């Protein structure tokens, strides 16, 4: 399946939009993903991962002119709702009754649940977690959904930094979104298994950082082959075509 990438979204503190990324990033980091898609009421309860996800999603939908109420959504995230999980662990450690709101929003699909409520979207949505292959597998699932259903598919790749006590090294929040469409304008995207060639290193410490190399290739418009995971043998790569 070859899809057209009809829109992109991006949020990381040093590049809170695709334009900021293209321009080389900000001097002063942005502090909060605005996630306007959620509206003020849902946004107040949304975790960092949910705000990251909805910010990148909203940007990609706008860029592609896609209908937020109809799009099929895929969230690729290695760690899921970790901030909320740690908040629950803390309540357990204190012997407190677990907060129903935190528990409800600790599921990995919390962000997509909120996005679906905000947009009145009853189309399918799903999550993908596959360790270092998460970006590739989320795109594979997105392409599969596009082939099976035909409707626009938004694939969001998002992770938050590891919190204490699990953090080894500092990391940055990152979310990137691709709006996949069966036809029309925009660069072509398909996944292939190839021996990995060197991909431009991206200095954002985040498990879904391979998404940034893909964003770069999509902004150029191809042709390019971008490795989406590390490895010595054949790995999943994105083939970008004009």
């Amino acid at each position: 399946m070859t899809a057209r990438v009809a829109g992109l979204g991006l949020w990381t503190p040093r590049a809170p939009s695709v334009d900021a990324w293209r321009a080389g990033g900000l001097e002063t980091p942005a502090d909060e993903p605005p996630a306007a898609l959620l509206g003020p009421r849902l946004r107040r309860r949304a975790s960092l991962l949910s705000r990251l996800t909805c910010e990148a999603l909203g940007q990609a939908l706008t860029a592609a002119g896609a209908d937020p109420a109809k799009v099929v959504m895929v969230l690729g995230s290695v760690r899921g709702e970790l901030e909320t999980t740690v908040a629950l662990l803390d309540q357990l450690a204190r012997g407190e009754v677990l907060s129903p709101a935190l528990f409800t929003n600790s599921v990995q699909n919390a962000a997509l649940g909120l996005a679906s409520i905000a947009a009145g979207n009853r189309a399918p949505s799903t999550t993908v977690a596959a360790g270092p292959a998460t970006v590739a597998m989320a795109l594979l699932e997105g392409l599969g959904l596009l082939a099976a259903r035909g409707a626009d598919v938004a694939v969001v790749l998002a992770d938050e930094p590891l919190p204490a006590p699990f953090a080894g090294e500092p990391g940055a929040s990152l979310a990137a979104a691709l709006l996949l469409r069966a036809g029309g304008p925009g660069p072509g995207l398909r996944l292939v298994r190839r021996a990995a060639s060197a991909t431009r290193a991206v200095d954002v410490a985040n498990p879904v950082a391979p998404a940034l190399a893909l964003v770069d290739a999509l902004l150029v418009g191809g042709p390019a082959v971008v490795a989406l995971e590390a490895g010595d043998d054949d790995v999943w790569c994105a083939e970008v075509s004009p």
Partner: protein
Amino acid sequence: MPAGLPITARSAVNALGRTTAEVLAALDAGRSGLAPLPGDLREALAAGDAPCGVIPGDLPALPRGLEAFDTRAARIALLALDEVAGPVARAVRRWGAGRVAVLVGTSTSGIARTEAAYLGWRRTGALDPAFDFDRQHAFHALLDLARAVTGVRGPGWVVSTACSSSAKVLGSAMRLVEQGLVDAALVGGVDSLCRTTLHGFGGLEVVSPRGCRPFAADRDGMSVGEGGAFLLLERAGDGPRLLAVGESQDAHHASAPHPEGLGARLAMTDALTRAGLTPGDVDHVNAHGTGTRHNDAAEARAIADLLGAQVPVASTKAYTGHLLGAAGATEAVFALASLERGVVPASLGATPLDPAVGIAVATTRLERRCRVVLSTSLGFGGSNAAVLLGEAA
């Protein structure tokens, strides 16, 4: 009937037993696996005395070289994978290791181990050096473990959409086969008892103090369970078939279902449409049926609106407890048993039936040919899935 994908092997382990045969024997006997937690587990989880679904006996230890993956969820996965090891090895030889996908649904992966590590860190200020985030806490730990013990090397991921997780992986598997990316898929669900879910549902005040009784007039909540189930899907082979998976979002509320079951109905309709079947083709529904007042009422409304008041419906939650991320795959195994043996299980605990549900809940075991069975899984975030299974060609 559409072609679908043959299911050539399956396993389920949960409170009813340590093998699929034990589990199905208990289902036939109408025996609940729910019981208060044994003392050691109750202490470890700081749990109360509400009945839960615990796998009986000791769980298997991790094999040599894979000790770092040791979590309760990993041990459950090992137990469930052991039973399908032969057929999976044959599929790897037949199709090639890289042509077999692995897809796992879970809500919490190895979080029981994370809880212990976190509590220890809060007490001592040091994180247990044996705690391994990527091999214990992370979702992909179950993926890496399944690959290591089966030799499967194809594409794969974990779906974590709360209680619909391991129903949705069946849909992912169909898409991978349909796209020609794989020829077979090892698909399953795993979740273990842990503090987070026990106390989380406790905080929501939806846990039944005496054991869940789905669709009963005096039902008073759900029961948490643990378990694992795996199914092997192949492009060609003998066995009952996965016909379609329907999926939808409620777009209503983060934890409460749409009151009229709109999302559940959309998922069931989607499954039927994708399979080219009509509501009249469904011979039995394995309902999500958790036992909470609102969930059962909403789901019953969805079933009544789409499938009518005649199709026999059963919830198996009063046997196993709610297996959360493992519920979809487990209940697919129950649905396969109905197809193969011509039996609708008794919906345990459903009497006296709630007259308001307006559907044909099977209060006793029914012998009846089932050509097509629908299994629903509905979760937090408004995530719904409906798995449509058909008898062998």
